[in-house]
């Protein structure tokens, strides 16, 4: 990989980082919103560095640097990679792979496929040790009894799972998520949302089961209003949290697909 190639690779990689953050919100499909400024900064640094490298190369600055590099180059010959005056190992070409991923594939947010392949196992941590007054912080207590409370699916599931006070019972809540068919031809579907703490690789599934409406098309987004179907017995043993819908409307994908 010669220096022009290295410089151009850096410019393209920086451009990919900037394209997915500045003119579009593409980056929200992959990482937390908080990463945006860092990605922009990293993109700017890479573009500037790439341009400086190309500029220095075109001015012929390299030729006086070449002799000084004979030592390190020799070591690379020994390792078997790096040829001629190439100054970066061949593996550096792989830096173009994220560029291609962004510009050609533009990967969408994780959706129903991930929910289905993750199965029913994941859920929020049952922090039963913590019996402080309100570990939820979802504003359900503050809202009036007849108001519709907007909850993240994560908050709803947490309530449904560990709230021994059963504050959720009888309350109208609003949830936003995407539709996932129930596995093995079950009688319902799931409204699901992925929770991300850093990037899509650590996404955790939260979902509620819906049985009183026909399943909409997979991966379509819905805003639903309704109530929690209160289960019998110990909440902690419940693995599927059921939701009864009063009204539902389709929404275009929310700008940030993760919770």
């Amino acid at each position, binding site marked *: 990989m010669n220096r022009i190639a290295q410089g151009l690779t850096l410019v393209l990689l920086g451009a990919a980082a900037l394209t997915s953050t500045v003119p579009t919100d593409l980056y929200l499909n992959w*990482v937390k919103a908080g990463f945006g400024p860092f990605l922009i900064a990293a993109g700017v640094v890479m573009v500037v560095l790439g341009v400086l490298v190309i500029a220095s190369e075109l001015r012929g600055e390299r030729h006086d640097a070449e002799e000084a590099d004979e030592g390190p180059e020799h070591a690379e010959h020994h390792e078997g990679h790096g040829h001629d005056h190439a100054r970066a190992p061949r593996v550096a070409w792989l830096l173009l792979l994220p560029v291609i991923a962004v510009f050609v594939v533009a990967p969408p947010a994780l959706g129903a*496929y991930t929910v289905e392949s993750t199965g029913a196992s994941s859920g929020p941590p049952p922090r039963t040790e913590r019996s402080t007054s309100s570990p939820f912080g979802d504003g359900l207590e503050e809202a009036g009894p007849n108001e519709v409370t907007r909850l993240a699916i994560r908050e709803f599931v947490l309530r449904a799972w560990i709230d021994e006070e059963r504050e959720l019972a009888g309350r109208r809540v609003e949830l936003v998520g995407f539709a996932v068919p129930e596995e093995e031809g079950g009688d319902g579907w799931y409204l699901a949302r992925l929770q991300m703490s850093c990037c899509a690789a650590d996404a955790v599934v939260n979902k509620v089961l819906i049985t009183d409406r026909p399943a909409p098309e997979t991966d379509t987004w819905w805003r639903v209003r309704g109530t929690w179907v209160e289960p019998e017995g110990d909440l902690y043993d419940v693995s599927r949290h059921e939701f009864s819908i009063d009204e539902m409307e389709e929404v275009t994908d929310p700008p940030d697909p993760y919770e």
Partner: protein
Amino acid sequence: MSERTTHDSAPSSSLGDSIAVGWDDRGDELPPADWGRRAGSRRTGTVWLFALLITAMAFGHAWLSDELTGPAFLAWATIFTAISFQALPFLVFGVALSAALVAFVPTSFYRRFIPSSPSRAVPVAGVSGALLPGCECASVPIAGSLISRGVAPAAALTFLLAAPAINPIVMIATAVAFAGQPEMVLARFVASLLASVVIGWIWVRFGRADWLRLPSRPTTPGASKWRVFRESMLHDIMHAGGYLVVGAVAAATLNVMVPREWLLTVAGMPIVSVLVLALLAILLSICSEADAFVAVSLTDFSPTAKLAFMVIGPIVDLKLIAMQAGVFGWRFVARFIPLCLVVGLASTFLIGGVLL
């Protein structure tokens, strides 16, 4: 900054102009008669190659994006891009910091700050890992530049292990994830620091210099500090970045291919579950700033198993193995990674047994 960096250029035109002019000038050097013989025509070839690539990407985007709809492929692409882009800022700023260490901090500074005896330098390096925020992707190039600045390799390696594991951001993230369980935060700090320092000491005792391919740097005598800075950054991004992509590919593939249910069936077995979560940490290659949130979501596992996930993840994972191979060579990785794994697990069992 750009003014100083380009001080040796003709100051008349702006940077963009000089590049554009440069490209135009090379345009007529294409004749294939001297193809590959002169640097100029090779450069032109490279420019053409990239022009071709950009065109291909434009067509690919227009034609293929309707074809690429396989859900498994898209999930893979999303996770690959996510890992790459999450690591990118850390890589860039880690590389910038390490290049700044090379270009602007005189060697004498390290001699004053870090004890000359390696066995005393190791704990100092371990504790200083607790001060500098940075993740795995940043610490590999930083450790490389510390070694090439004359810091004892064992101390630099201890820093490499400790910095991503116990830095302030990671400790805060762990405290947030394990709210109400301060013992988990303490256990993570102690176990990671212990493992890093012990690995450093073992390296002092048994490590051999020729296992480590010392990072080679383009240092031109008499070059300006900014030029050294630029060249070091370029060198490090190209070496560490390529392997970061390798790690991201591997981690994304495993993330999509390995069903999580397999893991949950073993959660009940006491020692096996610890080993399984350690293995999971290696395979998933999650950034150390995020791994606490993943650990806390693995509710079926014992606290010691979760601790193993958080202790092993920052010191051994696919992304890190690939990056270390890029900076230090495979001979090093073949010895260092098993050492980290064994010491990390021993430290996990010890601290987990005492504190959790």
